[in-house]
């Protein structure tokens, strides 16, 4: 298998899907002539031309609406948000339109659109540029929400997203773009709603998604080396649909769990996971399920404050030790 970056994996998925299906086109800011702000779409304008790689003005709501409309008549647009912080301007199109059209028209019009781009922060981007917000989208019936953490998952899941007949929120992370991993050649897909056990262990279940999966894996290695604690790390990959079976199976083995995400703790996606665990695995638990997440503050600029605001490897280690007491 080839070892490529997360960014290249995404680009492969886009390229292969555009070759496979002439209805697939890309739309977003700086994706064509400038080759993509994060270089995900590099070379695609040259390869597929202006009709299929559409550079836009800074008009997020227009981009989202245009993608939704095209999807309504059978195209398969992939709309890029330069970051999900800017998608806030487009939330009405996504929530009130993309997510509702199938249902309110009695199943007659589907909206096979993908909204993708980086979410999250961690590079001193400050208060307005560091949003995660996956819990907002996961809260909306009608949207699928996926958050791949590895190059292989990124490629397989982007293909699934493009072939899905529903609106999909596909959240990447700027810190992941240059990470590398083995990626199968050619066509393959990874279904939504199937979590991946990225590390097996018997003592504590760590549940994570997106970039914090890497944090969790590091923390798990450290705990194994220094304390002999074996963590099982579950990468959810997909939040809606959510693979509860894998979570419950793991907890019936470890009886302890920690949920990790970069979004704020308060009303974050972790709350939903914890609620379901206590509903469906109450008798299995030997300790309260803990959450490791961002502080409930707007993300600060100063390096030391930002570091304190985001979840760290140490935070995960501390939480694991707490559930083991």
């Amino acid at each position, binding site marked *: 298998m080839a070892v490529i970056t997360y960014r290249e994996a995404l680009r492969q998925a886009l390229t292969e899907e555009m070759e496979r299906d002439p209805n697939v086109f890309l739309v977003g800011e700086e994706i064509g*002539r400038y080759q993509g702000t994060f270089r995900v779409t590099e070379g695609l304008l040259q390869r597929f031309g202006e009709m299929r790689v559409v*550079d*836009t*003005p*800074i008009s997020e709501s227009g981009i989202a609406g245009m993608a939704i409309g095209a999807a309504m008549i059978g195209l398969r647009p992939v709309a890029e948000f330069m970051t999900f912080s800017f998608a806030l*301007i487009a939330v009405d199109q996504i929530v009130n339109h993309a997510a509702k059209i199938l249902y309110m028209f009695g199943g007659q019009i589907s909206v096979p659109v993908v909204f993708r781009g980086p979410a999250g922060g961690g590079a*001193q981007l400050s208060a307005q540029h560091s949003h995660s917000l996956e819990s907002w989208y996961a809260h909306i019936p009608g949207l699928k929400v996926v958050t791949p953490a590895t190059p292989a998952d990124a490629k397989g899941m982007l293909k699934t997203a493009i072939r899905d007949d529903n609106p999909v929120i596909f959240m990447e992370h700027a810190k992941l773009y240059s990470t590398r991993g083995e990626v199968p050649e050619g066509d393959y897909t990874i279904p939504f709603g199937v979590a991946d056990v990225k590390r097996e262990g018997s003592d504590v279940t760590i549940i994570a998604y997106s970039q914090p999966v890497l944090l969790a894996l590091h923390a798990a290695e450290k705990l194994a080396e220094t304390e002999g604690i074996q963590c099982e790390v579950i990468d959810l990959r997909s939040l809606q649909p959510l693979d509860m079976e894998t979570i419950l199976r793991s907890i019936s083995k470890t009886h302890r769990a920690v949920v990790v995400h970069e979004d704020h703790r*308060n009303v974050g996606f972790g709350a939903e996971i914890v609620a379901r665990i206590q509903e469906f695995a109450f008798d299995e638990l030997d300790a309260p399920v803990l959450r490791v997440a961002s502080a409930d503050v707007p993300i600060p600029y*100063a390096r*030391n404050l930002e570091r304190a605001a985001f979840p760290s490897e140490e935070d995960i280690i501390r939480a694991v030790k707490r559930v083991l007491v």
Partner: protein
Amino acid sequence: MKTEVAVRKALPESLTPQRLVELYRTMLLIRHFEEQCSPAYRQGKMGGYMHVYIGQEAVATGFIAHMRDDDYMVCSYRDHGHALARGTDPRRVMAELFGRYTGVSKGKGGSMHLVDVERGFLGGYGIVGGMVPLAVGIGYGIRYRGGDQVCLCFFGDGAMNIGPVHEALNMAAIYKVPVVFVCENNRYAMATPVEFASAVPNLAERAKQYGMPTRQIEGMDLLEVYRQAEEIIRQVRTTPTPFFVEVITYRFEGHGIADNPTNQALYRTKEEVEYWRQRDPIVNTARFLLDSGIATEQQLLEWDAHAKQQALEAVAYADASPEPPIEELYRDVYTDMEVQEWR
């Protein structure tokens, strides 16, 4: 050298030679301040997104020159020049860029979110166009209280394609708010040229339908900006109307730190940049000061050295300043309530 009478004639009535020198030195300060930023960034002293104002100095300087102490302004993330032109202490601006406690936002906002409430600078904002609706509210607040202040609202050409900006322009005209919308058209939004992004590339023309006076002006010449801004701000202050002004300008550097020369080659030529560098507002003004006999070569050199000194002092001050204490993480989330995290 011109006679004193000829000089007075060349200058707008309200602009004494002394004041012109002050404005020139403001531009010099901005230039030197910005020139310190990129190296400091590369040394890891700053992080996040950082956008410099080099080339556009005459715009903020020429407009802000007409602000009264009690006026307001808001602008985009490209905000260092606006803060400095408004008189904010360069040391505290640099400290903010360094994420230090002595910064204008205690290090919590960074380069994109400068502020100086005392001087009516109500912030730099990172979401393109986000400040334009805010300006309507500020203008409405001024009217509500019966004041004769104005609010200057600076934003880029790219913001003209954001929906909420158009809602705001319409509302500004409906409510006749005293806001000057200063659209700094530096030809590009990141790598996207105005001609590509705007179906009507003349942005003043595009704004005309909103029922307020509009004008397109030249932004590389301080005297011209000063003259136009004076007239426009006076009109907004004395008649109840907003005003939309498109200022043609140019950024000499990349969009931000990541927009290096290789990336810039994807959207503009070296010749184009050179063409605009020939119109450098600082060089222009220096030439005028010399030709008119307002300043000598020697003075120009001294002022330049002084501005550079100020910028270096700002760096030294920022370097020596402490990081914000960790308690700051949880401060300022609410005015009256601690964040309660159950851990």
